[in-house]
Every structure is written in C-alpha cells, then in structure tokens.
C-alpha cells in the first residue's frame, strides 16, 4: 500500500538559512507519527510546507496527488488539516461558528442562494450544523451546550486547544497535523490529551502527524517517532528505539555535551 503522505527531497531556505534540507519522510494510513527535534530543527516549517503556507523545492504527495503549488485552502480541502502552535482561533466568533467556518470548503451554496435561503443553502446549513455538533460532541461536555454560543476568547487555554482540533476535524480531514498540542499543559491534561488523540483516530478514522518538543507522554501512543535536526531526519523508528539512539541524544545535548541530567527531558515519560 502506498503511504498516505510522502515527502520527497523537500528543501526550503529562508535567505541563506536552510530550514529543511532534502527531507524524505512518509506517513502511512491510520498511523500516529510524532515529529520531535530541538528548537529550530524545522518542525513547524515542515508543517508549513505540507499545508502550503511555504512553497518548498521537492515533492510532497498526499494520497498520490502532489501538493506542491496548491494554496493552503485547497490542500486542507483535500484532507490535510492542521492546528497551530500559537493558537489561531477566530477569537470573536462563537465556539460553534469557529467549527462551522471550517466547513466552507465542503459547501457550495453561493451568496445569492444563502441570501434567499434556497434549498441547497438550507440543506447545507443543516448539514453544517449537524457536523459542528458532532465534532464538538467528541470533546464531551467541555465544548457543548451553553458553550456553543460563547465567543472563543472566553475559553480557557486547554479548551482553546480542543476547539482548534475540533475546527480542524470539521474540514473533513483525513490527516490531522497537530503542532505541539501538549504545549502549556500540565501532566494530568497531557494524559487526557493522549486519550483524546487515540480517540480521534478511532472515532474519525484519521491519520495523525504531531509535533512535540521532546519525547513525552503522548509519544507512547505513536507508531513511529521521527527525529528532526537542522532540517534533516536523523532518526526514525519505534518510540522505544528512538530514545536509545545515540544520534538523537547527541542532537539534544550537542556533540560536546555531557550526559546524565540533560538527557532526562528527552526520556521523560518513558521510564
């Protein structure tokens, strides 16, 4: 079976700085893959080239079709949705509207049809409504009921993260890219997040690529961990193998670095 997402010799530079360097990578259907790497390794840049925000050299194929040269809204329309590390919700729209807005690409009614509430517009509105409630319902009581009509800016940090995931799912995603979903969360919340990600895959049958700063609680549920450094993949494999890989330890500690305490963040959660 061909992989769902395939990166082939992807490179990107900003001025003289090489952010991605002939990167090869692939993600199979229904896998959960984690990308880790030190600061500046190119993790978020990787997401930005996949979702079309930056145009790289090389080729990126999703489900056999090339994503190069397509604008972000088309790429998301093809089934690759993402969240942002620095939350980018539509803060002044309500929780439900945030999710509904992401269904734009899946609906077709023209403004005229909407203004006159012609049959297609009405049918689509009903579908969108149902879709929004379905996606938000996945998160249990946290984003339900009275929350529907609250503006997003009143939500707590963790709920904003959840809403971002809900919004990404509402696009009809087959593949979900999560940019540091655990950032700013405390240990119990991280545990809950692990269950959430596992649940997402079961419920929506979605492939997940997620970024982490270092190996952590949620790495446990990953099928594959990919380690990035200086825009290159330096290691790839099962979580347990990666945490023992000497190249990875060097990447985190620097070549001349000592051992011991500094290695701990990388291995945290796996002991």
């Amino acid at each position, binding site marked *: 079976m061909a992989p769902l997402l395939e990166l082939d010799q992807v490179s990107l530079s900003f001025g003289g700085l090489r952010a991605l360097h002939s990167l090869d990578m692939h993600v199979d259907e229904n896998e959960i893959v984690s990308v880790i790497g030190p600061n500046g390794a190119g993790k*978020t840049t990787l997401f*930005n080239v996949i979702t079309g*925000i930056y145009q790289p050299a090389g080729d990126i194929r999703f489900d056999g079709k090339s994503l190069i040269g397509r604008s972000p809204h088309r790429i998301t329309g093809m089934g690759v949705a993402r969240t*942002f590390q*620095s939350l980018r919700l539509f803060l002044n729209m309500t929780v439900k509207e945030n999710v509904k807005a992401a269904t734009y690409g899946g609906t077709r009614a023209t403004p005229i049809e909407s203004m006159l509430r012609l049959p297609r517009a009405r049918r689509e509105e009903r579908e969108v409504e149902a879709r929004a409630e379905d996606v938000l319902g996945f998160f249990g009581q946290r984003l339900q009921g009275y929350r529907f009509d609250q503006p997003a800016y009143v939500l707590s940090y963790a709920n904003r993260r959840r809403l971002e995931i809900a919004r990404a799912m509402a696009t009809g995603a087959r593949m979900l890219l999560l940019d540091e979903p655990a950032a700013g969360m405390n240990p119990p919340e991280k545990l809950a997040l692990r269950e959430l990600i596992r649940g997402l895959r079961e419920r929506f049958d979605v492939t997940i690529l997620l970024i982490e700063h270092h190996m952590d609680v949620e790495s446990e549920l990953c099928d594959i961990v990919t380690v990035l450094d200086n825009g290159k993949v330096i290691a790839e494999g099962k979580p347990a193998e990666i945490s023992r890989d000497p190249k990875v330890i060097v990447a985190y500690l620097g070549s001349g670095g000592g051992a011991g305490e500094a290695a701990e963040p990388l291995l945290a959660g796996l002991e």
Partner: protein
Amino acid sequence: MGGGGAFSVACTAQMQIFIQTLVTGIVTGCLYALIALGYSMVYGVLKLLNFAHGDLYMVGAFIGYFAIQWFGGATALIIPVPLLIIFMMVVAGLGVGALGVAIERFAYRPLRNAPRIAPLITALGISFILEDSVLLLFGGFTRNYNAPAFLPFRQSIHIDGVNIWSVQIIVVVVSVVMMFGLRELVNRTLFGKSMRAVASDREAAEMLGVNVDRTIAMTFFIGSAMAGVAGVMSGLAFGQISNIIGFLAGLKAFTAAVVGGIGSIPGAMIGGLVIGLCESFSSSYISSQYSDLIVFALLIATMLVRPQGVFGQPPLQKV
C-alpha cells in the same frame, strides 16, 4: 544652416523651463518631506496613521500668517525680515508641537491598547475638528502671506535666465538642516535610542526602563513641530493658505512617506522629493489638472509593486 541658432535658443528656453520646474519640485518636495517625516515617525512608534498630521501643517501656516500680521503686516513690517522668519518658524514649531502633544495625550493615549481601527477613526475625528475649528475661528476664505512684499523677487539668484528666489533657498536649507538634525537625533541621542526601542517593541522597551509615554510625546512634538515649520515655509513660498490645505498636503506627504517606505527617515526625505518633482513636472509638462491624479497613480503603483515602499522593511509574519 540658419536654423541652428534658432534651435539653440529654443533649447535654452526649454532648459530654463526644465530647471525652473526642477527648483519648484525640490522646494515642494522638501516641504512634503518635512511633513512626511512626522507621519513616518508617528507611524514608527505607534503604528498609527495620523490623518490629523496634515492639519497640523495647516495650523502652522496660520500661526505664521498671524505672526506677520502681529508685526505690522507684510507691507509694513516693524522688525527686520530675518528676525521675523526665525520668529515665525520658532513660534509655529513650538505651538504646533505643543498641539501635537496635546492631541496625543488627549485622544491617542487612551487608545494604546484599543483595536487598531479606533485610533484611526479618532485621527479622522481630530482632523475634522482641527479643520472646522480653524474655519470657525478664522473663516473659510483664502489668506495670503504676501511674502514677495518683504522678500522681493528682486533678491533672487539669476543664473542664465533661471530665477531662484531667496525664499526657495530658505526652504531647502531649513529643510535639509532639520532632516539632518533629526537623523542625528535618532541615531546619536538617548531619545533616539528609546524611540527606536519603542518602535520595535513597546512592551519590551517599557520593561527595560524606557519611559514610553515621554518618548511617544516627544515623537509627537518633533513630528508636529516639523509640520508646523513646513506650514510656515509653504506660506512663504506659495502664499495662499486656507483651512483645507491640510488634507491634500497631508495626503501627498503621506504618499511620500509610503513611497519612501513608512517608518524610514531617509525614505521619507527621498519620497518627498520624488512626489514634489513628480508633481511639478507633471503640472508643467503634462497638465496641471492631472498632476494630483498622476501623484495618486504613482502611489498606487508603488504600493502594488512594493507594498513596503522603496526603503521599508517587509513585515515579518510568524506562523
């Protein structure tokens, strides 16, 4: 051939028109540059398009006019002319500077953390109030500095049929001195350093002990004072003033700031000159009616090709 002589005479006449147009363009350009600098500085520190800035220039022109009247009027001055000009510039500079600070304190400071549109709308409101207050106080008719009465055209420099009036020299010299003064101020002094700090990150600057309020007030003072002096000089050079000259001048100066790259001081100077020259050449070679349209078209074209202007830095976007 006999035609050679006639041709060379025609050529000289053309050269004269060319040089005269060039001089007018440089003079206008210097004035635009002075106004543009204020625009640019305020935009730099507050990210605010201060639409009222052009009206400050208008107020400066009025202060200069009343200074002339105070000293007996253009035809019967009771003090020496150089003294009058220095007095006009100093009073207009200080007065308009103070007005700028008052406006900042009263209208813009409460809006530092408001949505972006709020100070912009306030600026439109201030512009309305300034224009109409002058209309209320002094009437809507056009006044004339009548500068040739005390600075006669006779005192021009004549070079080969081209006349450069002393006022034009004053305008260029004062503008250049002020621009270089400003550049030194921004690059060399502590105030300049804090201004640049506030421009790049207000909160960080505040945390590092920069007195942000004072820096912004100072920026408004300097920017407004330069607009005030520009108002006086434009009255001297072009004569006619009224309560509505501010809007168009502000708009053109703003074009200058944008063409040069908003937030950049040399950009504002060069932008001003470009707009001034463009205006004077299009009105003497194409059509005076279309000169404003040509300037507007130039702006729109610049913005489309290079939105950040010729000298501006493209904004960074963090994803």
